[in-house]
């Protein structure tokens, strides 16, 4: 287990370094000068050269990269060109809000998906199963932004239950002070993952239901409810755990859309604005944070797998 963990962490470190290099190159591919896109078409040559020397943009690419790495080692993500604030501060303000959004929606998705998958597996190929399969297929096939708009149309415009815009408070407390405004963004994001989680849960529950130990548990007289919650749930939840870890990037993509639709002040919105204004320090910082979170997420999923399932023992393989 320790050897396996070390190897996985080593891989993760390699991936993060690769990630930095790729993103750094990608962002510096911008044609024309960054200075011009930030300062505008009327910028004088003097201002452009001042901008370039302030941000070290006239140095060779590898020097810029090494400087950036050096800054990172000191916890310095650079300063945003547009907002003129340290990127680390900007990200630190938004990470808790993203944890609230992504965390709540993932929990919500799981709370619905797990019982739904088991129900479908138990009632396999009957009307209820077909209806839910149809529903999750439709959900999966819908563009995220479209059902965000459908939710707004239904719950804000027609029924006036929930506001169509997320609270734009700068602090986490302000965000949580208005829980009603959180409902639609969280539900939107939960629906993004619900379809795939419930599909996985269904197929893995079908496999588990066919096992002999389930028949034994039923034969020795355990009530159905107990068999489902003790044996089926615990054994079939494993692939879903991996799934949650691996679906992190798609949840983030969903978050960018949800934040854009509901004007939710998270990292997705920050990144979207930075991408459209060539604010490179913000893009680098956000992508790095999300990339690391993705790598850590899949690592955590592997470890959780081993913790939940005592049968899984990672060898030296």
């Amino acid at each position, binding site marked *: 287990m320790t050897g396996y963990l070390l190897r996985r962490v080593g891989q993760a470190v390699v991936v993060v370094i*690769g990630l930095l290099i790729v*993103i750094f190159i990608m962002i510096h591919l911008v044609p024309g000068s960054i200075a011009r896109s930030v300062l505008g078409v009327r910028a004088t040559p003097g201002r452009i050269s001042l901008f370039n020397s302030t941000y070290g943009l006239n140095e060779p690419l590898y020097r810029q990269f090494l400087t950036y790495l050096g800054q990172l080692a000191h916890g310095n993500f650079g300063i945003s060109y547009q907002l003129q604030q340290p990127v680390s501060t900007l990200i630190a303000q938004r990470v808790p809000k993203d944890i609230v959004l992504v965390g709540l929606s993932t929990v919500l998705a799981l709370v619905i998906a797990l019982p739904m998958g088991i129900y479908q597996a138990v009632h396999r190929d009957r009307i209820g199963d077909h209806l839910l399969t149809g529903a999750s297929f439709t959900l999966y*096939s819908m563009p995220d932004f479209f059902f965000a708009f459908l939710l707004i149309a239904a719950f804000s415009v027609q029924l006036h239950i929930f506001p169509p815009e997320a609270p734009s408070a700068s602090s986490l407390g302000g965000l949580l002070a208005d829980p009603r405004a959180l409902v639609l963004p969280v539900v939107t994001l939960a629906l993004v993952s619900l379809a795939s989680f419930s599909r996985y849960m269904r197929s893995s529950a079908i496999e588990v239901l066919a096992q002999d130990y389930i028949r034994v548990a039923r034969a020795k007289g355990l009530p159905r409810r107990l068999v489902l919650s003790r044996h089926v749930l615990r054994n079939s939840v494993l692939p879903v755990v991996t799934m949650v870890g691996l679906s992190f*990037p798609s949840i983030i993509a969903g978050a*960018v859309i949800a934040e*854009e639709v509901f004007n939710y002040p998270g990292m997705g919105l920050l990144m979207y604005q930075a991408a459209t204004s060539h604010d490179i320090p913000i893009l680098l910082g956000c992508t790095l944070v999300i990339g690391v979170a993705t*790598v850590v997420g899949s690592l955590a999923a592997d470890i959780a797998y081993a913790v939940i399932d005592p049968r899984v023992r990672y060898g030296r393989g």
Partner: protein
Amino acid sequence: MAAAEADPARAAPALARPGGRRELAPGLASFARSGTGRAGTGLAVAIVLFSFLGPLVYHTNQVTVRLNLASLPPGSGHPLGTDASGYDVLGRLMLGGQSSLELGLGVAVATAVFGTLYGAVAGYVGGFVDAIMMRVVDTFLAIPSLVFLLIMVNIFTPNVWIIIALLTMLSWLTAARLVRGEVLTLRTREYVQAARMMGGNSPRVVFRHLVPNAIGVIVVNATFTIADAILTYAALSFLGLGLPPPHADWGTMLSNGLNYLFDSYWWMVYPPAIMLILTVIAFNLVGDAIRDALDVRLQGR
């Protein structure tokens, strides 16, 4: 009940054929019998016919903007009304379908070719090369897709080919992983060893024996890729980073239409949304059915 037992006349010659077809033939029979597979194929064919043959039957102006005809509700002459530029929505749906389908297909083909090559080489060569190649894949997988697209679309002025290339850069990763996994299990089979022992060089083993036998995984992934590419591109056009106006596709139509949702111009929103959803459902159903048909474990259940 396996397909081979159900129809021995069909299965017998299939067993004699070399390569992947031997595995595919019983699978195809079982695919043809699955209800969802049929429904998905029928739906996909209908959508393709609608988009490519529709304009030959139903002629509309999709070139000049006519503001005197803008935002007309469905009625005579315009079964689905007109959009904010005065284009007939039904005609535009057909045109948009062409580009959405072409985009999806382009990405799927490019993904299948590139992902298969990469995955097959990594899996076949193995060892250090494999480790390096897979870390590259992991690195790109760690970049959130939408973030990648946000950055790249701001760098390049998007045209259809660039969009296809960018979407392929995202989707080949999964294909490469799947093919590698498949090749890893296939390369230890006796027929692969036999081919090598008889003097087959590496390209021959990879292309004649490994890739044809991994074709099931590749095809299934390609159908899902079509659906995913159409959806991802829709998200991109929603963020305002799609192709510029003369170009029509369902994602752009839908995101433009959403501006008018609260004006109750429903005909600009729901038709492209429904086409988009139906297309994605169709290809997902086909992919699911092919996967079930090829999965020997599920046959006979």
